């Protein structure tokens, strides 16, 4: 700690983020989710429970709104007054959007949630004191608080089931906030293993649990900087840019015939998850 460091690197400390001149390098993790492919089957959500040691809170606590599903599948109905939803329902997998300018990060009193150099919104369980301000300020409400001490709660993980727990991740005790991490444990293992080879991760070498399991490949995860990655190509093809609050394509006359969009983009959190609109056939 020194004031000289402060003064010497003053301009660096005054940078806003994300900016063009200091991009993430070599990684910026991002997702794209094709809502036309998503069937709402919930496999991703179960995969998340399995991978990330999420507690099954039980009926009573679920009723109190204390469920811990980092990834939830939302189901929307058409909102005109049709008698039957004759174009089906619409499903939306919602998890932490890993915002580049995350509203949750600034408000944490102890700095338990930060932005990592590879563009993730990290959550430091050890540091968290449970003020829950991050959740209060999250527009998507994708942060989940440990209202109880689940590791010791009856029937959450009976002794037999503790053997299933993923040792790469800690169990969270009571009073700690948690959320989707883009399976950071997998990312870190991957990054470390390629570090020895002196290269960066290639597309597909790290998959998130939800992506890996998705039966329709609706979820694409990868490095947005890597031009070879599918996620990069999808964002590019959909003309969705990261650090804007309104996409150029949407400002064009007549709108856009591309499907990519981001949820609550206008609030300027710069989410790292792009959704692609569900399509419904016009001929039927």
């Amino acid at each position, binding site marked *: 700690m020194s004031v000289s*460091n402060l003064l010497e690197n003053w301009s660096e400390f005054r940078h806003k983020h994300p900016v063009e001149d200091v991009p993430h390098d070599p990684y910026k993790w991002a997702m794209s989710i094709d*809502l*036309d*492919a998503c*069937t*709402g*089957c*919930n496999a991703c959500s*179960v*995969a998340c*429970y*399995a991978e990330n040691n999420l507690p*099954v809170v*039980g*009926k009573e606590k*679920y*009723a109190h709104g204390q469920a811990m*599903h980092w990834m939830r*599948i*939302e*189901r*929307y*109905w*058409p*909102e005109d007054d049709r*008698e*039957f939803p*004759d*174009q*089906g*329902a619409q*499903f939306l997998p919602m998890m932490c959007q890993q915002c580049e300018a995350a509203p949750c990060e600034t408000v944490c009193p102890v700095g338990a949630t930060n932005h990592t150099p590879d563009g993730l919104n990290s959550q430091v369980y050890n540091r968290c004191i449970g003020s829950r301000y991050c959740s209060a300020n999250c527009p998507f409400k994708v942060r989940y608080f440990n209202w109880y001490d689940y590791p010791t709660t009856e*029937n959450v993980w*009976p002794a*037999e*089931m503790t*053997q*299933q*727990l*993923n040792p790469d991740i800690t169990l969270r005790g009571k009073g700690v906030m948690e959320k989707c991490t883009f399976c950071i444990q997998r990312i870190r293992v991957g990054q470390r293993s390629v570090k020895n080879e002196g290269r960066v991760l290639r597309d597909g070498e790290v998959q998130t649990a939800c992506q*890996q*399991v*998705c*039966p*329709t490949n*609706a979820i694409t995860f990868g490095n947005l900087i890597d031009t070879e990655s*599918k996620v990069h*190509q*999808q964002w*590019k093809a*959909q003309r969705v840019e990261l650090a804007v609050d309104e996409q150029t394509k949407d400002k064009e006359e007549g709108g856009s015939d591309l*499907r990519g*969009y981001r949820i*609550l983009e206008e609030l300027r959190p710069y989410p790292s998850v792009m*959704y692609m609109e*569900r*399509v419904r056939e*016009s*001929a*039927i």
Partner: protein
Amino acid sequence: MIDNDFDRRDFLKVLGWGGAAVALSGCGNTSIEDGKETVVSYVHAADYVIPGISVYFNSTCAQCEAGCSINGRVREGRVLKLEGNTSSIINRGKMCGLGQAGVQHHYNPDRVREPLLRNGDKGETITWEKAYGLIAEKLNGVSGDQIDFLTGTVSGHLKVLLGNYLESLSSENHFVYEAVSPAVQRAANMKSYGMEMPRFSINKAKVVVSFGADFLGAWVSPVHFSQQYAEFRKGVDGQRGVLVQVESKMTITGANADRWLVVRPGTEGILALGVINALGAAGLQLPADVAAAVKGYDKERVSKDTGVSTEHLARLAALLKERTPSLVLLGSAAEGYAHGSENAAAINLLNHVLGNVGKTIEASSAVPFPQIAPATGNYAALRLANNRLADGQCKVLFTYATNPIFTAPTEMKFKENMAKAGFKVAFTHYLDETALQADLVLPLDSALEDWGTIVAEYQPDGVQIGVQQPLMEKLYPNTRGMGDILLALIKQRRAEEYKSFDDFYSYLRTALLKNKGEFAEAGVDEDVYWNDLLSAGIINVGGNVNKLVDKISTNIQLPPPPERDKDYPFTLIPSVTASLRDGRHTNQPWLQESPDPLTTIVWDSWVEIHPKKAAELGIVEGDILEVESRNGSIKAQAYLFPGIHPDAVSIPLGRGHEAMGRYAKGYGVNPFQILDRVFDKETAELAMHETLVKLRKTGQRIIVVKDEGPVGGSQQGRKIAVSVSSDQVDLSEEV
């Protein structure tokens, strides 16, 4: 900045390896259960147990009958997570929620761990020797036709061994019962295509019209079809596939349809014939007999009978005519009526008319060794078994992988009839409803501890034999694999013949190696071959392709939709959900807490009712309704659900257990109990959708435990989940 030359991670690495070495050479526990307190549980750790490093083994999922190949992550000798095996043509590396919950089946705290012998109302722990002795004793003096085996679907070498055992007992009474099965369809397909289960290529179709086939949820092989569906949506020749779903209660597949056509319950066949009629009207050349058969099904009549507007009917016909090939699927919703076979025939006829047979409906391959082909289950088998029990023809009953007391309608009195058998043996994982009625309960290894082969009924390409192998050591010393048990039992009869097999593993190995020539190149070493086979987890064989017939049957007798019954005005649709199915895995908490995709309800049962009807009856969400059929009543919370025909109500299957374990018992209700005994006329299958019910408000109201908020599926005008019409989007440049 924190600048430190000493890399902490490197330090930990060094420490970690050193520590592991000490641990490896140190303590003396041999089982994981014993060694819980130690870092590493083995003295002589297997080669693959490297502390901190995960290893992956392929096996086969036993959570449903689809036969997906799984890839289990194992660390420190414990299986942690199941992924899909990427080389499996069934699931291509993907999984469903139910499959992933297999680890919770394995680690379930409510598994039976010791053989139990009934002693009054209690179970007394006994040894396996005693159990085997007891079975031998009870079988002594009982003739073969007094011994019944009631099982779920069995396939592979377990089926072979079971057959051999039955043969040794000179019993032919193997009843394969599945409460939820496409049995009517099998019969109809046999007639229409010459095989029970042809290959359906959704990915080759430009239009899929599904009559109640929930192929994205619980129908036949959902993970496989989901992948086909994804390709279908991406498009054949650049044209995005169009899905039309016809059903009375929206399934998850219906929720993903471009057009969901709600029909009056039971009129699926009428609609199918109506579409043929409309196709003819639109200029499609129909064979004369077909044209004659559908003559009466003009669009006004069909629209009146089914409730589908003439406009939609015309548009559907136009679309089918314009975009070929298409595919018409037939699912449980269309089958579940007294005229289910007729419905099925009508729907299959549509495929014939559209010329889909041979294009999107292709011949499946025969399993090269018929003895390992799956014995598919149906309801008729239970009926037979139940009759035998009722008549006292069965003295010794073995049950395996089935829970008939839970899934049989109460009116069958299966529980009472089962008591008539002198000696009941349940091979089971849980003390479920059926096991509780048994005299001897024999605990099984979990699917992740056991050996075996699984052959799925639906084979997407050739035949894939799934190899099931233990992903870790047994959790409990006194559980046994089903194969081992059968081998032990068969040795009681034919010791000489089977003496060379120490256990089921050696039986399996011998059996598979015997056919090495069929699967592998000549001259491969046996051990190499065996190891390759285990590491692949699957055996792909070409199999002889069955011959597809394109047989048109126009003798279809569809009844007009009945008048609504005044006393019982609603059709009860017992819905099959993707995660709970017939309730055999309800004790897996991930499945209980995984919200139903359409209602987002967890941990409980509910009654779906159309909001319009609910308003008429003054029902609001959370009202406890008594749903009463002629055969009983159950009480569950009301959920206002727009995706259901106003004449129908729907309750999901799978919940309402009175036993089985802490996560299943006492949650929800079991609609199997109140089903009416109406049967499909041709196949004698239980017509699951023929139960008529009435609703009564009990006056209680609760808050429904669900994930959706108070505004339900409304986005409140915010841009959250966006939908776009296909003519307003350019999919050509997409990646």
